[in-house]
């Protein structure tokens, strides 16, 4: 070793400081402190308790699905699986199809994500990486507070403030400059798919941004330093060292936000226009699955009508499941090849 070449370095090992205390062994022989088997009974009770909680949840889902299926049998017999893709919704002639509602739910939710995700990630990046310390707490708290506002309040605000703004300024502007896309044409009513998407986006931002903030905070400081030490600028550091590491978690937050958007009823009903139509333009009114159930349940006079509404509920359930499966696949494809917990 090289160290021999240096002569004899005066290195000595650590000196023992005190003798370890000798444990008396007599007590252990006479009365063992821990009796074998003692922990079995409480463990068994605990195990049973949590097991029954788990079974309860499964049972609950089972009952809900069973109810949805049996209560929609009438409509199922009348229209078959085509129910989900029919565009007619004519209670007078008892012709029912769920497609306009499926379409409305998907389009308004996706529109909400398109608007909300960049904003939410931007907010999270600002709060975790750039915000002066004195502003951090209050900004984080305010964003989270947005999630606690009841959706009917959002609906009211949308009707009295947002919709007039859309009608007077935003929609005419969009029609003039982006009308050629076909997405922004027709009469700017204010109320319609665009309004629903925007109000959903506002409701989704706090969810996505608080989760994004959590996962960004959880990215180890060493990752940031690794990128900085390579000569990265601040933005490169955030992109490579933070967002890239947090992307699976951010996707998880987006999925939760999407879940909220798919099921949101009140605020959407108040601004979407409630017309079972499919139009390319986002200015046109639409309808969602949750809204039609809430609005028409009390006036569903015939059995087939009622049964069709329950089947719309079944459709909402299925769409939610499918979207969640797709989202899981997306997360899986992003994290593929990575160790389960990347903490390096």
């Amino acid at each position, binding site marked *: 070793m090289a160290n021999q070449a240096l002569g004899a370095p005066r290195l000595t090992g650590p000196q023992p400081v005190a003798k370890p205390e000798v444990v008396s062994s007599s007590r252990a022989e006479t009365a063992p402190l821990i009796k074998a088997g003692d922990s079995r009974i409480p463990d068994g009770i605990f195990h049973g308790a949590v097991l029954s909680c788990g079974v309860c949840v499964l049972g609950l889902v089972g009952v809900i699905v069973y109810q949805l299926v049996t209560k929609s049998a009438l409509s199922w017999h009348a229209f078959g699986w085509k129910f989900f893709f029919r565009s007619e919704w004519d209670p007078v002639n008892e012709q029912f199809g769920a497609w306009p509602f499926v379409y409305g739910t998907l389009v308004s939710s996706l529109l909400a994500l398109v608007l909300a995700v960049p904003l939410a990630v931007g907010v999270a990046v600002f709060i975790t990486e750039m915000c002066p310390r004195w502003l951090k707490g209050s900004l984080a708290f305010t964003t989270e507070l947005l999630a606690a506002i009841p959706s009917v309040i959002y609906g009211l605000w949308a009707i009295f403030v947002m919709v007039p703004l859309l009608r007077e300024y935003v929609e005419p502007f969009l029609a003039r400059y982006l009308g050629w896309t076909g997405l922004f044409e027709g009469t700017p009513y204010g109320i319609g798919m665009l309004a629903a998407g925007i109000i959903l986006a506002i409701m989704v931002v706090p969810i996505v941004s608080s989760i994004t903030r959590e996962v960004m905070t959880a990215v180890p400081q060493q990752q940031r330093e690794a990128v900085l030490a390579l000569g990265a600028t601040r933005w490169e550091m955030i992109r490579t060292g933070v967002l890239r*590491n947090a992307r699976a978690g951010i996707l998880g937050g987006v999925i939760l936000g999407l879940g909220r958007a798919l099921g949101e009823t009140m605020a959407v009903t108040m601004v979407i226009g409630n017309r079972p139509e499919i139009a390319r333009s986002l200015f046109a009114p639409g309808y969602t699955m949750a809204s039609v159930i809430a609005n028409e349940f009390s006036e569903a006079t015939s059995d087939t009508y009622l049964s069709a509404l329950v089947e719309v509920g079944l459709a909402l359930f299925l769409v939610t499941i499918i979207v969640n499966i797709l989202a899981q696949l997306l997360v899986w494809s992003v994290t593929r090849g990575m160790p389960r917990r990347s903490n390096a």
Partner: protein
Amino acid sequence: MGVGIKVEHLNAWFGKTQALHDISIDVPANHATAVIGPSGCGKSTFVRCLNRMHETVPDARATGKVRMGELDVYNGTAAVQIRRRIGMVFQKANPFPTMSIYDNVAAGLKLNGFHDRQRLDEIVERSLKLSALWDEVKDTLRKKSGASLSGGQQQRLCIARALAVSPEVLLMDEPCSALDPISTGKIEELIFQLKENFTIVIVTHNMQQASRVAEFTGFFLLGKLIEFDKTEKIFTTPSDKRTEDYITGRFG
């Protein structure tokens, strides 16, 4: 080729507490220089001042003069530019877990806007060979993530990542403190080879390690540089009583 580092009257603070007091030191080019001292004496702070990583800590600041070859580190050059010319290896291996082994090594070059595939391939291979990792990973370069390697391999991957940008100086902050003896041996061997072409500053807790790899050693205590000399001199006939107490294990 490596360049020398000339540090004059360097002071560093974390908020109001001063972590380094008036450090002046001449780190010679193409040699390994060890920095030793008890925990909390400012070793990490010192090396982090050399590539201006110190100032990335909120409220931290530094004064004094650091010259790296022709370059004035604290005057007239952007921190980003400095860090591109100085490689750094951290105590805890920190490969990018979402990137493949290849992308980990290429990360620094890509940050610099370097995208020529063929040259990238060459540099990645050369860097991994330099860090003695090539044979172990050459078949899974693009398939495996940087975090899937063992601790010692991860640390060598980090060394490869630092070397890929052809730095003039390599700073290593206790690179072996989390590694087993075999990985430690490999990295020490590596340092031995690297110092022919790079200037290396290595912080270490392990005095045998300092004596094995470094020609020069600086002893820090409570934020002050107590003694800086040839490693042999420091470990055999130190001129300061405190250095002697430390290396004979009387404190620290």
